[in-house]
């Protein structure tokens, strides 16, 4: 990831996580990320237009429930937090992509974000994401999170 883009990703992710799910996101050197567990969720949002590519968030599955609990103002053990866990995670990816799109290309450009898609990941896939140069590591309330942004500007 280019330095300028990495800076925008860090700034935007921190802000959206703070305002949307009331959690703290701190960028961290990927080599220092703690052991993340075995089961992960990936939310991927494809973007098309003047800028094309994809924005992906990868989190340990348990974090989805915490995200839902924080958004809905309930404790994470409540049924509602489990019920809305994946949907809340997708919404976080959706909002982050919308804000990042504005930060990367400004308001005038025509860039459309597709509906976010959810998938499961195992530790092998997590490690593959971790190794990507387009991937930035974060700690979100002490939980490791990966943010991968791949973009390609339309040749003018």
């Amino acid at each position, binding site marked *: 990831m280019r330095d300028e883009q990495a800076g925008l990703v860090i700034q935007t992710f921190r802000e959206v996580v703070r305002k949307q799910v009331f959690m703290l996101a701190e960028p961290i050197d990927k080599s220092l990320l703690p052991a993340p567990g075995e089961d992960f969720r990936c939310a991927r949002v494809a973007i098309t237009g003047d800028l094309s590519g994809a924005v992906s968030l990868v989190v340990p599955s348990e974090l989805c429930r915490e995200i839902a609990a924080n958004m809905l103002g309930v404790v994470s053990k409540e049924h509602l937090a489990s019920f809305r866990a994946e949907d809340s995670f997708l919404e976080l990816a959706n909002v982050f992509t919308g804000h990042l799109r504005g930060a990367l290309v400004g308001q005038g450009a025509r860039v459309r974000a*597709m509906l976010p898609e959810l998938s499961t990941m195992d530790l092998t896939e997590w490690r593959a994401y971790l190794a990507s140069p387009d991937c930035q590591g974060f700690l979100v309330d002490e939980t490791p999170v990966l943010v991968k942004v791949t973009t390609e500007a339309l040749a003018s």
Partner: protein
Amino acid sequence: MAFNILVVDDSGTVRDFFAKTLRLAQVPVGTLFQARNGAEALSILSDHWVDLMFTDINMPVMDGLELVRRMKGDELLDRIPVVVVSAEQDQQGIEELMNLGARAYVRKPFTPERIREIVEEQMGVSDAR
């Protein structure tokens, strides 16, 4: 006075969050209707009176743009104030929706204060609590 409000968003979390936000903002709500997309919203609008509608743009089945376009073509539905709620910052897309008749735009994530402000503006009341 209580308002019938329709929230249109494919995310159940956002719809639940709206319900919580309206409570926190102390907006007097008669019935809070919920729809997952534009088609469901039109179905609700055909059977119930709604005072104010909040809609997302990017949804499956029928998006917010098409929903507002269809409402514009209906004499009764055209009178319902529509507020666009989205994470998008696409100025052209927002202008397109405003030209179709949407009254305001709220960017996600939003606060109870901002929602109360919007309800007061659109319903023409100085204190909606």
